[in-house]
C-alpha cells in the first residue's frame, strides 16, 4: 500500500458508480510498481518437550491440534555406515524390510491387513548415518498402530522364504539401477571421491546381497534397534503426557540397551589432481555430469557460510549455475550444486544432465562458475542479500506439516544442534560476510582437485571434451572400475 491505495480507489469508485471501477483502476494503477512486501511474519517455531523413557530412549513431543492426525517416528543415531560389515552392505535395508514379514503372533499378511484397516502403514529404512521406523495416523488410531510397530520391531520372526523373496527383488532393483544414467553417475562419483575403503564409497552390490544370511539379519536387528540410540518424535494431535504414557505402555517390552555410535571414518584417499572420469553409455541422449570433491561435515563452523554460498552458486533456480547453463545457454533442463554435510566429509557436488553435443561447452561453463564463485566473479550485494533472505524467510516452510515439524526437530537431536537452533538461525545466516564466502569457496571448491564424472555417449562427446583441455580423461565402467584397454588421454596423472 506504499505506492497505491486501493481503499482510495474503491471509495472514489463508490462515489462515481460501480461500473466505472474498471476504468478508474486503469487510470491509477501503475503496473510497473513492484508491490512492497508487508512486515515479515513473526517466526512461529513449534515448541516441544524432550524427556527420557524408562528404557533410555529420548522422547520429543510437539503438540499441533489443527488436524486430527499425528506422526510418530523413531530415529536411530548411526546407520549402515556404522553397523554394516563391509562384505554385507545392504543388510540394514533388508532387515528393515523384513520387519513387515511376520511376528511371533502375526503373519506378514495379517500385519498388512491390520495396518490397512487402521488406514496407515508402518515404514522404515536405514540410511548411511541414521535409520528410522514410523507412521502417520489419525489421532484415534495412534495406540493400535504403535502396538503393531512394537510387534514388528521386537517380535519379528524373519522367515527364510521372505528373505529369499526380498533378496530376489533387491537384485532386480540393482540391475535396473544400472540402466539409469543418473544413478550410475551418482554411484561412480561416490566411488571416485571416497574409494571402496571408505563407507561413503561403498554400497550394496550383487555380491554383498547374495552373501547375506538369515543369521546376519537376526544379528543386525538385535544390535541395531536399541533404545539407547533412539530418538522418538511425536508431532500432532496429542499431548506430551498422553503420548509419553501411551509410548511407555506400547514399548514396555523394549528394554535398555545400545548407545550412540562414534562416527569415526577412515582417512580419505589422497586427493587426485583434477580429472575427467568418463563412463560410456552408447546411445545416451544426454550426458550426466557430477563435479566435486569431499567436503566438510555438518558440524563445520563454516556451515552457514556454505549454505549462503551454495544458494548463490547452485541451490536455486536463479543461482549462477542454472541461470547460466539452463536459462542463458539452454544446454540443460536444470543444473545445481550441493554440499551433502554428513557426520563425516560429505561431498560437494555440482552437475546435471546436459544435451550430448553441448557437454564440452557446459563443462566449460561449470568450471567458469566454480572459479567465479572462488573470486573471479565477485559476489554482489544483491546476491548476498537475496541468498540470506531466501534462507531466513524459508524457515516457516520447515514447519508446514506434522512430518515436516517432526523431521525439523529430529534433525537437531541427530546433529547435536542446540534447541534454539531455529530461533538463532536468522542471526547466524545474517552474520555471514562476503569475506567468509570467498574464504569458504576457495577452501572447499578446490579447483585443482575436482573429480569430473560424466556418464554419456563416449563416441559423441570424447573428442570435444578432450579439446577443452580442462583435465585429462580416465575411462571407467558403470561400476567405476577402470576400463581395460580404454586408455587415457594423458598418463601424467596416473
Amino acid at each position, binding site marked *: 500500500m506504499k505506492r497505491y491505495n486501493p481503499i482510495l480507489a474503491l471509495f472514489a469508485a463508490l462515489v462515481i458508480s460501480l461500473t466505472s471501477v474498471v476504468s478508474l483502476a486503469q487510470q491509477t494503477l501503475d503496473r510497473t510498481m513492484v508491490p512492497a512486501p508487508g512486515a515479515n*511474519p513473526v517466526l512461529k517455531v513449534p515448541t516441544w518437550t524432550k524427556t527420557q523413557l524408562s528404557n533410555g530412549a529420548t522422547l520429543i513431543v510437539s503438540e499441533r491440534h489443527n488436524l486430527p492426525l499425528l506422526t510418530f517416528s523413531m530415529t536411530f543415531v548411526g546407520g549402515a555406515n556404522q553397523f554394516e560389515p563391509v562384505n554385507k552392505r545392504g543388510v540394514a535395508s533388508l532387515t528393515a524390510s523384513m520387519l513387515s514379514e511376520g511376528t511371533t503372533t502375526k503373519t506378514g499378511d495379517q500385519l498388512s491387513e491390520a495396518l490397512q484397516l487402521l*488406514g496407515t502403514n508402518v515404514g522404515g529404512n536405514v540410511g548411511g548415518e541414521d535409520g528410522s521406523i514410523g507412521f502417520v495416523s489419525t489421532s484415534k488410531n495412534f495406540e493400535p498402530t504403535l502396538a503393531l510397530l512394537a510387534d514388528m520391531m521386537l517380535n519379528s520372526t524373519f522367515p527364510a522364504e521372505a528373505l529369499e523373496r526380498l533378496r530376489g527383488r533387491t537384485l532386480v532393483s540393482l540391475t535396473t539401477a544400472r540402466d539409469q544414467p543418473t544413478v550410475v553417475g551418482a554411484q561412480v562419483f561416490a566411488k571416485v571421491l571416497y574409494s571402496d575403503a571408505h563407507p561413503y564409497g561403498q554400497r550394496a552390490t550383487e555380491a554383498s546381497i547374495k552373501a547375506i544370511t538369515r543369521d546376519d539379519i537376526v544379528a543386525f536387528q538385535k544390535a541395531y534397534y536399541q533404545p539407547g540410540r533412539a530418538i522418538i518424535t511425536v508431532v500432532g494431535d496429542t499431548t506430551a503426557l498422553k503420548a509419553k504414557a501411551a509410548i511407555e505402555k506400547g514399548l514396555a517390552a523394549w528394554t535398555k540397551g545400545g548407545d550412540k555410535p562414534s562416527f569415526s571414518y577412515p582417512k580419505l584417499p589422497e586427493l587426485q589432481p583434477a580429472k575427467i572420469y568418463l563412463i560410456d553409455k552408447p546411445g545416451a541422449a544426454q550426458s550426466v555430469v557430477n563435479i566435486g570433491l569431499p567436503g566438510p561435515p555438518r558440524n563445520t563452523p563454516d556451515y552457514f557460510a556454505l549454505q549462503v554460498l551454495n544458494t548463490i552458486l547452485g541451490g536455486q533456480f536463479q543461482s549462477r549455475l542454472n541461470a547460466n547453463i539452463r536459462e542463458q545457454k539452454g544446454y540443460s533442463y536444470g543444473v545445481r550444486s550441493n554440499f551433502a554435510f554428513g557426520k563425516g566429509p560429505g561431498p560437494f557436488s555440482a552437475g546435471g544432465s546436459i544435451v550430448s553435443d553441448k557437454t564440452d561447452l557446459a563443462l566449460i561453463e561449470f568450471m567458469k562458475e566454480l572459479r567465479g564463485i572462488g573470486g573471479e566473479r565477485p559476489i554482489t550485494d544483491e546476491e548476498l542479500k537475496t541468498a540470506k533472505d531466501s534462507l531466513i524467510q524459508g524457515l516457516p516452510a520447515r514447519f508446514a506439516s506434522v512430518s515436516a515439524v517432526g523431521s525439523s526437530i529430529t534433525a537437531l537431536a541427530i546433529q547435536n544442534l542446540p534447541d534454539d537452533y531455529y530461533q538463532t538461525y536468522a542471526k547466524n545466516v545474517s552474520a555471514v560476510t562476503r569475506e567468509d564466502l570467498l574464504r569458504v569457496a576457495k577452501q572447499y571448491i578446490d579447483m585443482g582437485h575436482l573429480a569430473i564424472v560424466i556418464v554419456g555417449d563416449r563416441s559423441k562427446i570424447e573428442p570435444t571434451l578432450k579439446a577443452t583441455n580442462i583435465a585429462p580423461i580416465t575411462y571407467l565402467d558403470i561400476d567405476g572400475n577402470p576400463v581395460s584397454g580404454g586408455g587415457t588421454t594423458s598418463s601424467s596423472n596416473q
Partner: protein
Amino acid sequence: MNNKRSVLALVAMLLTVCFLQPTVAQRSSKSKSAINIPFETYKLPNGLNVILSVNKTTPTVAVDVWYHVGSKNEMTGRTGFAHLFEHMMFTGSGHVPYGLHDKLTEGVGGNNNGSTTNDRTNYYENVPSNYLESAIWIEADRMGWLLDTLDIAKLNAQRDIVKNERRQSYDNQPYGRVGEIFAAAMYPKDHPYSWPVIGSMTDLSAASEEDVKAFFRLYYAPNNATLAIVGDFDPVQAKTWIKKYFTDVPQGKTVERPNVPLGKLTASKRLVYEDRVQVPRLYIQWPTVGVNNNDDTALSVMGSIISGPRTARLTKALVYDSQIASQAGAFQNGDENVGQFQVVVIPSAGHSLTEIEEAVDQVIRKFINEGPTAEELQRAKAGLELGFLRGLESNLGKAEQLLDGLVFHGDAGYFATEYQKTLAVTAADVKRVAAQYLGTNRIVLSVVPKGKREMASKAAESETVSIVLGAQGGNR
C-alpha cells in the same frame, strides 16, 4: 490521507461486500467432519473464478492459477505446444522483467513452478504471507500482458530447454517412452489424447511466434482461468488485491470444449518395444473412462484392491505366492474426458513376460468372476480419511484439490462428494466395472532389452513399435 484511513477502510469493506456478495457462489458448510476445507468462491466480471481458503497454521500462502487448457487442446503438427507455452509464462511479462518472479518467490524463501497435463496447465507460487500481493501482481501481469515482451528469441531459448526436458525425463529414462507408445496405440490419430504432453521434437521445432500468440489469446484469458489462494492471509485484503490487479485483464472469447470420445479398441493389440534396459517389463492397458464419469470412482477402488499392499490380488499372486514378479502395480488413470486402467509388472529373474501375462490374466479373470470380498472393500476404503487429512497439510495440496473440483466438476467442494462416492462404492459396483472394462480388447506392451525381441510376451504375435518422438508429463 492518514486521518481518513479508518473511515475509508469501513467504506471499502462495505463496498467489497456489496460488490462481491452477488457473485459469491458457495461457501462450504460448517461441517464437523474431518473431511472439510472451509473456502469461498466468487467470479470477477471478466470471468475469472476465484477460490479463497484461509488456514493460519503457518505464515505462508499458496497462489495457484489453473488455465483450463492442456495438450488435448493442441492440433496435430503442433504437439507439445501447451507445455512449451507453460515455459513461456516464466520469461517475464509486460511489467514484470525476467528474473523478478524468481526473486519474489525463491529469493524470499518460497518457490514457484508450473505443470501441464492433457487437460489443464497450472502455475503457482508458495511464498511467505507478506509476499502475497506481489504474487497476485505477477499472476495478473502474465495473464494480461505476457505478449508485450514475448519474442522469437525467448521462444527459441525455451524450445531448447523443453527439448532438454524431453531428453532428460523421457528419452534418457529407461522405460521413459511407455506413455507415448500407449497414447498412440490407444487412440486414433487426431484424437486429442493420442499424443504425449511433452510433444514431439519435430513439432516443438515447428512452433512459430504467431502460434504462441494465438494460443495465448484464446486460452490464457480470465474466463478460462481459476485463481486459488490458500494459507495464512486476510481474505478482505486479498479480495482488494485481486480486484486491483485482475479486474482490467480483458475477457477473451468463449473456449469451445469439444466432445471427446472415449478410447475404444475393436481388437486387442500386442506391442513390443526394445529399450536400453536390462530388465524387461510387461504393461497392459484397457480403455476406461475419465473423471467426469461415475465409473471412475469404482475403477479407482478396484486399482487399490488389485495392487498395492501385499494382500492385494495381483501383488499377492505374483509377488508373494508364485514369486514370478518382483513388483506389480495396477491403477485407474482418469483424465478429464478419458481414462485407462493399467497393469505393470517387473518379472523376477528367470521368469518370462509370457508367463507373467498368463498369471495376470488368471488373476483378472478370477476377479471378474468373484468381485471383491467385503473385507477387501473395507480395507481399500480404510485409508481414505487419513489420506485426505494429509492432503490438507500443504497449502498447495489444498489449492490443487479445490481447483480440481471447480475446474473439472464445477464445484470447488467436490472433494466431499468424491469422498462420499468412494465410501458408497459396493462390491457389486467393483465387480461390474471389472467385467465391463477389463475385457479382451486391450493393449499388451512388452518393453525388452535391445536386440532381445524374443523376450516379449508371445513375441511371435506382437508387433514391433517404432516410435518417432513425444512423451508424457511436464514440469517447468
